[in-house]
């Protein structure tokens, strides 16, 4: 990757433009009254089409993506993004459809929603899905709204708490707070699983439910899930499943069968749609049959004659959570993926993702601290280096240093300092689309980095050495925020 130091504004020259618009064939409209118009034109670049293409191509070359190399990124399931997905999502036949068109004119679109719902229901063991949430955290919030709406509709008004494990993704407690729920934390045991004894006293008639992911964020299967489910249900609470960790269960275990009532899926993780540098994602929410009346609307339904229509109103619905029916373009990609995958390959997704994680874990645990032994699922967590090279005056290499050194070798970093249970957490998830050769190359580099740390931790602490930029001054960025182009310019 090479460094390129321009902003599009800096390419601007008075009088250039990059658009092509038709001539006005209508009489010119009367201008707006002056009192309603802006006083100055907005400051936007004046650049040609060539300028734009070169600039953004140059910017792209400072970026790393799944197509560039391996992402051992725990919790994020950075699997390969198939190209046929893009071809289908970019079909002109879908691009020009307005979201408020009459159902009779969009039967193909509605069929995609309906078929996706049936497939996701089968894969998860739940009954009905809404596709309206635009991302995973949006799905969590929507799922919690459904949970609360269920209790409210039953007149069970005192259920204002939600139990969240200390190992949970940060979005879980944040989504609960946005949904007006109080977060109660349940601790993990030494073996990384939820402490059922700690859970029991928390369960009473103020609990709306529990948010879990299984396997949990340590990549460990919650072996006592059956007891947890029956305890929570007996207390009148519901079980929410955070679908960020669905990948290892694909084709093997269904959240609905484990007793979960509500879940979200990240189509941009488990179902192969691209992350796009942080979205657009899609976070469909699935529920058990008895919760379907509380799902957000609008929603696609099939009529008796086999045609599809859109359900707009239902008294019990939690409400409307996004502008239309979610990120249809992302749903198209995920649907394409499932059609390509087919039932015969579903189980391999889970198995290969788990095999890869265990393979890396067993190949590195002599050099990186493995806090909890045993078979993991799709991901696992190391707690820093066995030998960080620190002694007397010399500071040892941290997890951050390991992560930054990986960039020098052409790998993305793992998820670091999460979960919060360990100080030097290094969370690795390979996914099923990586070959043994790739995993071996990653293992070799991780071993090399461990050797460097032991001998001269400064190599890691100074890393990365050969990326387009090196470690930034984050303190300066936060202390004196420069958040737009004109912030960095003296007043003109």
């Amino acid at each position: 990757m090479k460094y390129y130091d321009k902003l599009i504004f800096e390419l601007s020259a008075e009088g250039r433009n990059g658009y092509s618009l038709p001539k006005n064939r209508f009489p010119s409209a009367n201008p707006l009254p002056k009192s309603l118009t802006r006083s100055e034109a907005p400051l936007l670049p004046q650049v040609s089409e060539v300028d734009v293409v070169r600039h953004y191509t140059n910017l792209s070359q400072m970026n790393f993506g799944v197509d560039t190399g391996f992402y051992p990124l725990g919790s994020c399931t950075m699997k390969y993004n198939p190209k046929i997905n893009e071809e289908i999502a970019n079909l002109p036949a879908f691009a020009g459809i307005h979201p408020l068109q009459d159902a009779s004119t969009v039967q193909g679109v509605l069929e995609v929603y309906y078929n996706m719902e049936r497939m996701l229901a089968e894969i998860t063991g739940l009954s009905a899905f809404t596709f309206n949430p635009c991302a995973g955290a949006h799905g969590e919030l929507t799922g919690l709204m459904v949970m609360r709406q269920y209790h409210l509709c039953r007149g069970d008004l005192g259920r204002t708490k939600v139990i969240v494990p200390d190992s949970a993704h940060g979005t879980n407690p944040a989504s609960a707070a946005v949904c007006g729920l109080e977060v109660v934390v349940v601790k993990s045991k030494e073996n990384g699983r939820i402490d059922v004894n700690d859970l029991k006293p928390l369960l009473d008639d103020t609990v709306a439910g529990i948010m879990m992911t299984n396997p949990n964020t340590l990549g460990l299967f919650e072996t006592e899930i059956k007891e947890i489910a029956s305890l929570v249900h007996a207390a009148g609470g519901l079980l929410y499943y955070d679908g960020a960790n669905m990948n290892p269960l694909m084709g093997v275990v269904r959240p609905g069968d484990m007793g979960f009532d509500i879940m979200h899926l990240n189509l941009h993780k488990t179902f192969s749609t691209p992350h796009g540098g942080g979205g657009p994602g899609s976070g469909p929410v699935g529920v058990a049959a008895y919760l379907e009346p509380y799902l957000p609307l609008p929603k696609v339904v099939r009529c008796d004659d086999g045609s599809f229509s859109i359900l707009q109103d239902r008294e019990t619905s939690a409400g409307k959570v996004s502008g239309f029916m979610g990120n249809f373009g992302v749903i198209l990609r995920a649907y394409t993926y499932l059609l390509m995958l087919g039932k015969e390959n579903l189980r391999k997704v889970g198995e290969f993702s788990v095999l890869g994680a265990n393979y890396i874990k067993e190949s590195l645990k002599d050099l990186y601290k493995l806090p909890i032994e045993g078979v993991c699922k799709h991901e696992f967590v190391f707690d820093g280096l066995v030998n960080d090279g620190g002694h007397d005056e010399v500071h040892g290499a941290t997890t951050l240093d390991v992560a930054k050194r990986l960039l020098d070798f052409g790998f993305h970093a793992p998820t670091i300092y999460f979960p919060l249970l360990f100080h030097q957490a290094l969370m690795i998830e390979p996914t099923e689309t990586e070959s043994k050769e790739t995993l071996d190359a990653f293992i070799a580099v991780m071993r090399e980095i461990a050797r460097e740390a032991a001998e001269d931790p400064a190599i890691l602490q100074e890393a990365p050495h050969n990326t387009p930029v090196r470690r930034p001054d984050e303190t300066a960025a936060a202390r004196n925020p420069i958040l737009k182009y004109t912030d960095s310019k003296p007043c003109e």
Partner: protein
Amino acid sequence: MGQFAYFPHTGEDIKAMLEKVSLRSLEDLYSDVPEEFIRKEEYDLPEALSEEEVRARFAGLAAKNRPMKVFVGAGAYDHYAPSVIPYLLSRSEFLTAYTPYQCEISQGTLRYIFEYQSMICSLTGMDVSNASMYDGPTAAAEAMMMAMASTRKKSRVLLSGALLPGVIKVVSTYAKFHGVAIGLIPVMGGQTCINCLKAELAKGDVAGVIVPSVNRYGIVEDHTGFADAVHAEKALFIEYCDPSALAVVKTPAEWGADIAVGDGQSLGIPLTYGGPYVGFMAVKKEHLRKMPGRIVGQTTDKEGKRAYVLTLQAREQHIRREKATSNICSNQSLMALYVTIYLSLMGAEGLREVNQLSASGAAYLHDRLLETGKFEEAFPGKPFLKEFALRPLVPVEKLQEKLLAAGYFAALQIEEGIVTFCVTERRTKEEVDGLISIIREV
């Protein structure tokens, strides 16, 4: 059919890897899962298709949609999309990248988000923008929660009845669960009524007020006196804007707003049945630390090179958990890139032209429709750009039936007795005249 193309594992690989982890079979990887939860039944899913079969399947699905000439806006606008944008967005370094937490290998993403923030600030006149949100309605809901967090101990947020129906519904859903009471400000003569606003404010307990810059009837609202009234009650003034129209209409900053939100879709993003679009939010400096979502800042690296990073992360969920300003994590990054490239290509002049072309087509359609005698003005004399409202004098069902049959999506009924039309620069004179002649026959 050979091995599935996205799985690189050979039989030898699997054997070697199992050996390394001291297991005999792939089933053993799930030995910790209680037996009863391992699914034994076959999944009721279709068998794998080849690429050609998938193409054929989607050609079939596409054929079940009827292409329509779109004369409706209502929150999704059929503007021209320059060919450069999908071309650049398909670059896998952008498309397949993760969130730019590892800034040293994400300068491309970080730089375009910085440019995006700069352009959103230019359009709105506000001081700071975040890295984008899901869509316009959810951005408005986030603004509602921000008002609550900023004003403390107040319990109400007021929404103009002239906001798009979808915005009112989404904000109300969030409000219900977040513990916020929503009050609706009545509309008089097609515009948010300032005296009604003042009356609502006088009841006290108001944390924020959300009003549309261009409203559900397409009318460009006059917000003279709004900010003063809202600020007198120590509430936040929030404007919901169409960013395309912001190239010409008075900015939220000029109207004295504290927060500007809206949907970036009107900046050339294809309709795609409602998404992906992109929400935006920009605020006055003093509200920066209460703003939800990711923010990119400029700094230097250890060698003094200009570098961009995610900054002020102490507001966010992965640090603050339940005390975060919002639960938002993924935004709509790639769609922010879409908007950034669009605004680079168009510039201020191109955007002005888009508004001029659209408004000319809309004014023409508006006047011709009145001449048909099938409509009367809903809000006489009120200024509009690309979208306008009329009162039909013929039964709406009959009108829509006729339009549908002719392949026109127009005259959307947004409330009892009011339909809206929208004309963008993509609609040709022939299409507009075609629409008029069909309506003449109703």
